[in-house]
């Protein structure tokens, strides 16, 4: 349910232990800080896929507020955003019906790694033990 509704009935919902909250792009995740351990599910809405505020909300929820439950991306969520969404801490995606889930999931594997510290990896410079694959990939056209 939306943040405002959740805030209105917070005590009851926490006692029940089943509620999930969804955040609009301009909601403040700090509002959930006190209850972060008791929420099984938080969803973040993307009204348009190129409204990128949800990526920052996800980063804040995972890293600053320590959210460990299911973080779901809802709204205009497409295959080509899945990899970045995953790196920002989303682990569930509600795709609009018209898109094939199987095809879309391939988007999660668009990249094998990256430079920055994310929800799924440490920064490259923090991995001095990173072993490079033997040899070069060669000039293979992909």
């Amino acid at each position, binding site marked *: 349910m939306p943040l405002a509704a959740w805030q209105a009935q917070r005590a009851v919902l926490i006692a029940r232990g089943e509620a999930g909250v969804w955040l609009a792009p301009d909601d403040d995740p700090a509002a959930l800080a006190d209850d972060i351990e008791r929420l099984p599910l938080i969803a973040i809405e993307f009204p348009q*896929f*190129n*409204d*990128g*505020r949800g*990526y*920052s*909300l996800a*980063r*804040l929820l995972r*890293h*600053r507020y320590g959210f460990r439950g299911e973080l779901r991306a809802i709204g205009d969520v*497409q295959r*080509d955003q899945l*990899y*970045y*969404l995953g*790196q*920002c801490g989303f682990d569930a995606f509600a795709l609009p019906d018209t898109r094939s889930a199987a095809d879309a999931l391939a988007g999660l594997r*668009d*990249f*094998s*790694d*990256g*430079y*920055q*510290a*994310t929800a799924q990896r*440490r*920064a*490259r*410079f*923090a991995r*001095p033990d*990173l072993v*490079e*694959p033997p040899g*070069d*990939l060669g*000039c*293979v*056209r*992909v």
Partner: protein
Amino acid sequence: MYRYDAFDHRLVRERVAQFRDQTRRFLAGELAEDDFRPLRLQNGLYIQKHAPMLRISIPYGLLASRQLRALASIARSYDRGYGHFTTRQNLQLNWPRLEDVPDILAELADVDMHAIQTSGNCVRNITTDHFAGVAHDKIADPRPYCELVRQWAALNPEFAYLPRKFKIAVAGADNDRAALLIHDVGLALVRGDAGEIGFRVAVGGGLGRTPILGHVIREFLPRAEILNYLDAILRTYNRFGRRDNKWKARIKILVKERGVAEFARAVEDEWRHWEGGEGTVPEAEFDRLAAFFTDPAYAKLTADDAGYRAALADNRAFERWVGRNVHPHKVAGYAIVTLSLKRIGVPPGDVTSAQMDAIADLADAYSFGEIGVSHEQNLVLRDVPQARLFDVWTRLRALGLATPNIGLLTDIVCCPGGDFCSLANAKSIPIADAIARRFDDLDDLHDIGELDLNMSGCMNACGQHHIGHIGILGVDKNGAEFYQVTIGGAQGNDAALGKVIGPSFAASEMPDVIERLIETYLELRHDDERFVDVVRRLGIEPFKERVYGTTHSSSRDRRRLVDAAARAGTDR
């Protein structure tokens, strides 16, 4: 320079594969135009007036000779045999076919190049001073830091869908040659009290419809925290930048609306939660990156080569070229050479494939195999032995790259404009050409002295006209192309935005307008004053009067106006 390892290669190839599939789906109708647009922009691909335009990334303006040869080959194979160097140190191809772009990206990947994030609402190319690492006045070499920030920005998953584009520049010298204060974030390398390296951080500069100079929000940031701090700035912008109006969506608007102090506080608050954490850069990483940018094997040369001195004395044209296009180098016996891409009859910043190959050869022969790209649309050979300058000049002359006009009136910074760009209100290249033709007398040019002339074909200000000593902006007036003139702008340490002198002019009038501005300057200057110095001293009034006043019109001027109008009638 930075060399890719398997890790870097893999990312670029995965990006090519990703875009190849996105293009396939788009052409097959599986991906809608609106959904494809941000994806292709983040691979530098615009759909433009005549053809798609591909903007290739040249990170902080540094190229190896093999990379320049690859660009030459790509321009030859997939385009019309030339490319255009931009004010953000990138290269644009104006005529690729959409379906060829994945193949172009694959060929770029072969030489450690790409078009990642050269457009779109994300962090764009990190730019720097084209003399980085070789000029006298350096505080620290900005290039390793540019590479660090580039890696942080590249394929950063949190900041791919910002309210608008984001441009970062880094400078490491007393003299800011990176135009820090017109960038969304300008990073100046500074030394702390104990001599340690850090950054002075400025935010919220930018041109366009609402030009603003940036404000310093932190005087000293320890270098280890630079990525955490950038995250804090970008996160604040990503969350709170305006998304309701494209013309109010840059960070400069957010900084202005919040106020600099309040914005700085918000960034500091965010940063404190991440300070010292996993984004903190270890010393080992600074060392690793610095090792890619060590000095080349400079020879021990005399500071004053006899052959060079003799050539200067004997050859007036050579002397003139050295005076404008050659800068002192930090190492005795070496020099920094600027190749002028500003020649009459050639759009500013354009280079043919044949020229690119020849420049690559020159770089290998004379400059340790590297070429620099300046944000003023010229190229730089950064480490040329003084003793070889005459040879280099001779070869550059044969290539048409030795016009002795660096920093002068005809070293015009000019966007592609209405001839190429669907965003433009007016053509820019023909105006630049007409002005250059009017002022083609080298003696006059040298007498006029240092003068930055910048031209943009529209409000987007890719030509950075606001910071020109003279700026020209193409405007649409009742469906016709007109030109608005500003004077008194400047980049660097004394950055300023130019002031409009009055109502706009027709294309045919522009050379006369510039001529009148110059005449006014020549009459009023004291000693060594440059054009911009006179504007600063006297304001725009005397210039305004001369340009718009009819009392100073001579019969020679009137005849020129009539001739120009007649010529304009037969122009393309």
